């Protein structure tokens, strides 16, 4: 059924060019019922290979731009540098595979730039787990707050937000067929017909597109799909496929898929679509909008905030129009956010820090920078559960930017050796455990190990763990044994309901409090995976042969041979 939208409101002038420079569109789109909004990138994600600098990431200059079957989608190979015999624009790729966290791919193929077609369901491929997250969100790769929408967010955007059914339609813009999505509360002087029957009913003129784009509309070109280095331009229709970050967990035991959105005249707009991870599809990144609101109990009479939602860097103006005089305006992180928790840790005395620990240990940090009771709560809110808070205080990490706490990943990383051979030293070698426990430099050790030209699999696995993490955190690293010491104390404190401060002891000195049989319930209670009696690598080296690790079967620390395979568990500092 076609519904005519009569557009009567203000005709807005084209947006300032300044907005384009940072690559964001102006329209805001709700992606969950809690009012979370995002803005879209002004074009699809692209990557181009330059022999002098490697792969360079970019955002297409126009919303309708796509590569299709032109080079370089068709120049992709299955080995580094994943293009062959070409340079520059001829190598531009804008259709990417979906690579799960369990994948061992570490080169640009971990972003799905590869011609591999046979490695679905393989660790040396697109990943083996149907519940694993995206190994490397394309947004995290680029930085600056870009990320990819989750499946739940796409669904809410296309079907759940207010008036959602009237805020998306198939259309043709600048001669390109695709999906037009209008921002929250959109009204316009441009008349559109909501339809999924064809792309041509809404053939938008350039002047009307200028208006629609200035109003914040998003256009996703139907850019087809890539399998290997072949691009399917004709599937009986013109299709668009845009990835989410969410694996398909329904087909247990089958080849892991991942969710995307799909649109075509044949199947309409499908927000529930799932497909093989090897299908190279489009990626349109978003940035989170953050909110500015008055604190509870604040006298808001004659005060206003504009805007109340915006991406990082948006200028916010707080205005008073009453007859009194303004004494002060204070802007602080909102309670319940990681930023607020960090400020609280900084301001806390010993008693207050104990209260913070009793309240927040064991809670989950979401990728949106908010703190949740469980991973399910984070998912329900439309975000990704990133990590579990295991330590709060200023002594968890030597990097001064992240001295408020530690959080562990909700599941294991890659099971691997620490290093392919028994050589060293790679980082400072500390044979005495009590001394080793004083080292809290996991970020620096991990960076050293992953950049010294040797194959350090455990550190690389941690650093490339891939789960989306919020701004204000360090990114994933392999913790030192000193950081493990704080983590197990935090988890044990959460389990006991009172502070546990006993240091990790050496092998043959069991500590029941630090066994996985005691700690796993803390992690599992929020939806994570426990340690399961395993041995876990730290980033603290003992000598050329051995590295400190944690044995959760016994609850002690011990030296383990580098070339042996054990578990990794990535950590964030904040």
């Amino acid at each position: 059924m076609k519904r005519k939208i009569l557009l009567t409101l203000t005709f807005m002038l084209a947006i300032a060019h300044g907005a384009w420079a940072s690559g964001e569109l102006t329209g805001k789109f709700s992606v969950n019922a809690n009012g979370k909004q995002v803005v879209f990138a002004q074009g699809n994600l692209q990557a181009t290979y330059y022999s002098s600098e490697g792969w360079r990431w970019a955002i297409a200059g126009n919303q309708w731009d796509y590569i299709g079957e032109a080079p370089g989608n068709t120049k992709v190979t299955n080995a580094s540098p994943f293009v062959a015999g070409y340079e520059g624009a001829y190598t531009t790729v804008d259709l990417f595979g979906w690579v799960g966290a369990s994948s061992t791919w570490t080169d640009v193929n971990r972003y799905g730039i590869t011609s591999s077609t046979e490695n679905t369901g393989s660790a040396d491929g697109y990943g083996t787990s149907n519940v694993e997250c995206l190994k490397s969100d394309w947004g995290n790769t680029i930085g600056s707050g870009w990320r990819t929408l989750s499946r739940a967010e796409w669904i809410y955007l296309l079907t759940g937000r207010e008036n959602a059914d009237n805020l998306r339609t198939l259309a043709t813009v600048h001669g390109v067929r695709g999906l037009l999505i209008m921002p929250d509360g959109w009204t316009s002087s441009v008349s559109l017909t909501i339809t999924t029957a064809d792309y041509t009913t809404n053939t938008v003129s350039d002047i009307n597109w200028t208006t629609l784009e200035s109003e914040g509309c998003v256009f996703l070109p139907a850019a087809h799909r890539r399998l290997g280095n072949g691009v399917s331009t004709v599937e009986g229709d013109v299709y668009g496929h845009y990835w989410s970050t969410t694996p398909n967990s329904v087909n247990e035991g089958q080849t892991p898929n991942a969710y995307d959105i799909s649109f075509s005249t044949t199947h309409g707009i499908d927000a529930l679509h799932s497909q093989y991870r090897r299908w190279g599809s489009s990626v349109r990144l978003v940035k989170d909008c953050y909110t500015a609101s008055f604190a509870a109990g604040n006298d808001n009479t004659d005060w206003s905030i504009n805007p109340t939602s915006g991406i990082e860097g948006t200028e916010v103006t707080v205005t008073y129009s009453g007859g009194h005089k303004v004494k002060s305006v204070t802007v602080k992180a909102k309670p319940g956010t990681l930023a607020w928790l960090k400020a609280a840790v900084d301001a806390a005395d010993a008693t207050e820090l104990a209260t913070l620990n009793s309240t927040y240990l064991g809670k989950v940090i979401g990728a949106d920078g908010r703190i949740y009771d469980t991973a399910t709560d984070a998912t329900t809110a439309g975000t990704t559960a990133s990590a579990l808070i295991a330590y709060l205080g200023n002594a968890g990490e030597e990097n001064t930017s992240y001295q408020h706490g530690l959080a562990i990943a909700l599941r294991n990383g890659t099971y691997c050796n620490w290093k392919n051979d028994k050589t060293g030293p790679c980082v400072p070698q500390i044979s005495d455990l009590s001394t080793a426990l004083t080292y809290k430099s996991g970020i620096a050790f991990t960076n050293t190990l992953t950049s010294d030209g040797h194959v350090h699999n455990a550190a690389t696995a941690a650093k490339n763990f891939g789960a989306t993490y919020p701004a204000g955190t360090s990114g994933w690293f392999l913790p030192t044994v000193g950081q493990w010491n704080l983590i197990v104390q935090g988890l044990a404190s959460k389990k006991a309901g009172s502070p546990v401060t006993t240091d990790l002891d050496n092998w043959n000195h069991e500590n029941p409090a630090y066994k996985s049989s005691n700690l796993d319930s803390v992690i599992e209670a929020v939806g994570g995976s426990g340690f399961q009696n395993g041995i876990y690598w730290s980033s603290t080296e003992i000598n050329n042969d051995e590295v400190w690790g944690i044995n959760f079967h016994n609850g002690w620390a011990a030296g383990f041979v580098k070339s042996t395979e054990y578990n990794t568990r990535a950590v964030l500092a904040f």
Partner: protein
Amino acid sequence: MKKIILSLIVALTTTGAMAQITPTPNGDKTQWTFGMPAYDVEITTELWYKLDEAADNRSLSDKTNVFLKRTLQAGGWNTFCAPFAIANPASVFGEGVQVKKLSTASISGNTLTLNFDDASGIDAGKPYLIKLNGEDSVNLAADGKEFAGVTQNYTAVPTTIAGVVSFRPVLVPESLTANDRTKLYLGENDNLYWPDADVTVHAFRAYFVVDLGASAAPELRIVTNFNGATGVAEVRGQMSDVRGEKFLLNQFIYIRRGDAIYDLQGHKVSTINQ
């Protein structure tokens, strides 16, 4: 249509560490701006609440940060009261300010003598006379004249000399009825006036209520002594009539009879043109 346009190279940057956000105010502090950080923020605002001399401010009695919309004039005495205490008047009214409180009063014949003592501070709800040091008036609504952390109390605490006079603070604008000659307020040139028309006395002031009966007031001679025997200053006042003639301080007392003004010796000084 297939196009390759690479126009935006995205820098490989990460979001910086959380920082305290300090919004920037405009000149009159009615607009504050800041850059949205990568987390949700909440905003707390604080006002200096205006206690307007022309308004009933009791609805703001729970506010602790306030300023008074009231100007004290230089060169003469001002009546003053406030719904909160001011421990150090010099910090508000300037160094050298004189603050007086009514201490005693007496009546002898038709001469009312008011004696004032120094006051080191101002108590909430009590009446005072204030004389600024210098030639500049003090606008209590100006920046820097705000009162922080006050406790407001709108209970008037008049200074009463039983059977003689009451010095009554005005914490809420108060109406005086025309020709009520028992109500004397301090006016221009430090004269005391009775209302020659219905008037409203604005808040943060004070007036005298003479306990002698209305008929006696017009003939009353008032002598105001400051600091008792030290005699620092003397103020003489005279009630005005409906046209409000002015009578100078520290000079002579003049009396209006009909359309003419006489000195105390009965000499006609002037004729009033109707």
